[in-house]
C-alpha cells in the first residue's frame, strides 16, 4: 500500500481508525487525512428569530472558528503522530454529508485503501454519526476497512 485515505474527525471510533492506519501502513506510505464538516452545522441557528442579524452573524463566525480550531488541533496532532511513524501526511477538509464526501475524495486520487472508524455504540456519549455505510459499499471502488469501536 502506497496511498491510504483515512477519514477521521477525532472521535473515539475515528481514533481507533487512526491507530489502525499507523499499524498497517509501512514507512513512507502516503496518508491522506479527510475531515468532513457535516452540513448539520448549517442548521445550528435553528429557528432563532428573536436575535438581531448581527448576533446571528457573530454566532456563525464563532461556531466556524470553533470548529476550525478543533479541526486544526486534531490535524496537527495526527500530523505529529504520522511523522513519528514516518508516513507522508496530507490533509483535506470538505463540507457536506460524510459518505458523499468520502466517495468524492476517493475518486480524486488513486488510493489503495480507505480506513474509517465505527459509529459510537448506544449509550456512549458523543455526536450522532452521520456516516451512512450502505452508499459507501455501493459506490466505492477502493477497498474499505471499517475499524471496530474500541473495547474498554
Amino acid at each position, binding site marked *: 500500500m502506497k496511498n491510504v485515505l483515512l477519514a477521521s474527525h477525532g472521535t473515539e471510533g475515528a481514533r481507533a481508525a487512526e491507530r489502525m492506519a499507523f499499524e498497517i501502513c509501512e514507512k513512507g506510505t502516503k496518508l491522506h487525512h479527510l475531515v468532513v464538516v*457535516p*452540513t*448539520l*452545522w448549517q*442548521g*445550528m*441557528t*435553528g*429557528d*432563532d*428569530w*428573536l*436575535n*438581531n442579524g*448581527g*448576533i*446571528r452573524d*457573530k*454566532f456563525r463566525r*464563532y*461556531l466556524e472558528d*470553533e*470548529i476550525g480550531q*478543533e479541526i486544526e488541533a486534531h490535524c496537527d496532532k495526527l500530523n505529529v503522530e504520522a511523522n513519528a511513524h514516518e508516513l507522508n501526511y496530507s490533509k483535506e477538509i470538505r463540507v457536506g454529508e460524510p459518505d458523499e464526501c468520502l466517495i468524492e475524495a476517493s475518486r480524486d486520487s488513486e488510493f489503495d485503501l480507505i480506513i474509517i472508524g465505527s459509529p459510537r455504540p448506544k449509550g456512549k*456519549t*458523543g*455526536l*450522532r454519526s*452521520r456516516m451512512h455505510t450502505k452508499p459507501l459499499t455501493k459506490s466505492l471502488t477502493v477497498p474499505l476497512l471499517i475499524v471496530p469501536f474500541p473495547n474498554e
Partner: protein
Amino acid sequence: MVYTKKNPALFIIGVVMLAIWFMADAGMLSGYIDHLGGKHYKHMPELLSMPKYFGAIAVLIGLWQWFGSHKEGHWDYYSSTVAGAMFILLIAMLVRWFIDPEVAALSKSMGTIGQTGKHLHTILGLNYVVMGIVAGIVIVNVFSVPEWAKNGVRVSRLGLKTGVILLGTLYSAAELKNLGGLSIVMIGFFVLGSVGMTLWLGARRNIPNSMGGVLSAGMGVCGVSATVACAPVVQAKSVEIAYTIGTILLWGVACMFIFPIIGHLLDMTPLKFGAWAGTGILNSAQVAGAALAFQPDGIETLKVAEIFNITRVLILPIIVMWLAVWYVKREQTGTKVSVSQVIFEKFPVFVLGFILMFALSSTGIFAPANHYKGKYFDNNKVKPEKMLKAEEKALLQAESAKVQRNDRKAALDRLIANGKVMSIDDDDVLRGLVNAKVVSKDANHILKNAHKAVRHTAKKVKAFRNWITWLFAFGLVGLGMQITVASMKQAGGQPAVIGGIVGFAKAVLSLIVVLLIVKDTI
C-alpha cells in the same frame, strides 16, 4: 456572487396562485368549498384577493428572474429572497384555505370525542398554524429546501418580527400594564429559577462551565435564541452547542403539540394559556406556534404569549451579562465584561418597533384610543335606521318596571329618551342588564341592537389583525423549514438529561402557578 437564480420556480408559483384565484372567482371551486363548510367557509374573501395580487407579483418578478440578466449587488440579494418568500406564502395559503378546513371537515364527520364535547382536531390543536409548521419541517427534512428558495426562507424571521411590531397596535394601555406586570413576575421567577437550576444540576453532574452556561441560557430564557446569543460569551464548544440546540428543538417541537392539547382539556382561557405557553415552553418560536395553535381564529392568546416573549428577550441581555461574569469568574480568564457592549449588542431592536406602534396606537391614529380588540364606542355615528323606533321604546318602557337596580334603570331611561345609548358607562350597564336576563327576550334583542349601533370596528385595526395572522403563519412555516431532524438528533449527553429535568419542571410548575394565580381574563 450572483444570488438570483435563473429559474422558472417563482413564475410557476405565481401561475399556481393565479390559478387558485381564477378557479375561486369563476366558481369552479364551489363544489369543493361546499364540502369544506359551504356558507361556514370563512376564507372566501381572502381566496378572491390574496392569490390574485401575490400571484401577479410573482409572475412578473418570476419572468424577470427567469429571462432577465442579473448582476452582483444589494438588489440582487433582495431579489433572490422573493422566490423563497413566495414559496412559503403559497404553502401557508394551501394549508390555511384547503388543508386545515379539510382536516376540520374530516374531524367533524367523526363526531365529538367522549365527554369533552369537542372535535378531535380542536383537542389536538390541528389547525393551519401547526400544519404549516409541520409542512415546513417535512419539506426541509424529506425533500430539503430547494436552492432557489434558501435565501427567502431566511426572510421568515422578518415576518415574525413584523407581526410582533404590528401587534403593538392591538394593546390598550391597561392591557399592556397588566400583562407586562404579570409577565415580569412569571418570567422573572421562572427564568432565574431555571437558569439557577441548570447551573446547579450542571455543577452536580460535573459538566464544563461553558456547557453549563450555554445550556442554562437556552433552558432559562428563550431557547435557541438565547443559545445563539450566549454561546460566544461563555466560549461554548461546538459539541456543547449541538447538544443544547438539539435538546431545545426537540423539547420545543414536542411542547408545541402537547401544550395546546392540555390547554383544551383544561378549558384554559386565552390569558391563562398564553401565560403558561409564554413561561413554560423553552423556545420562543414555539411559544408563538402554540399560542396560535390553541386559538387559530383569534389573536388574544398570541397577544398574551408575545408579551411574555418580549419580556424574555428583554431579559436576555441581563442573563447573558450574568453568565458572562459567572463564566469569567469561574474560569478565571481575566477577560473584562463590558456591560454597555453586551446590552447594546443584545438589545432586540424590533421591540422598539413594537413600542412605537403601541405609542402611535395610543394617540388614536389607527382607532379611537378607547378601543378594545379593535371595537370602540361612538354614539355620534349611529345611523338613523339604527335609532330606537317608537314601538321599541314602548316595549322597553313597559318592561322598565322589572329593572330594580338604579344604575340600570337610569341607563335604560336615557336610552328610551334619546333613542340610542348615551355613554360607554351606559353601554356597559345595559350589557349587564342583557346578561342578567331581567327583561324579556324581545327587549333583550332591542338592547343588543342598541349596543351594536354604538360599537364600531376600527377598519385599520381589523386590517392589522388580518396582517398579523398572515405574518405569523408565514413566519412559522418558514421557521418550520429551519428545524432539521439532523439538529434534533444531536440531543444527547448531559444536556439532554439536565434539559429534560429543567424543561419538565418548568412546564409543570408554570402550569400550577398559572392555574392558581392567573385570572381568566385581564
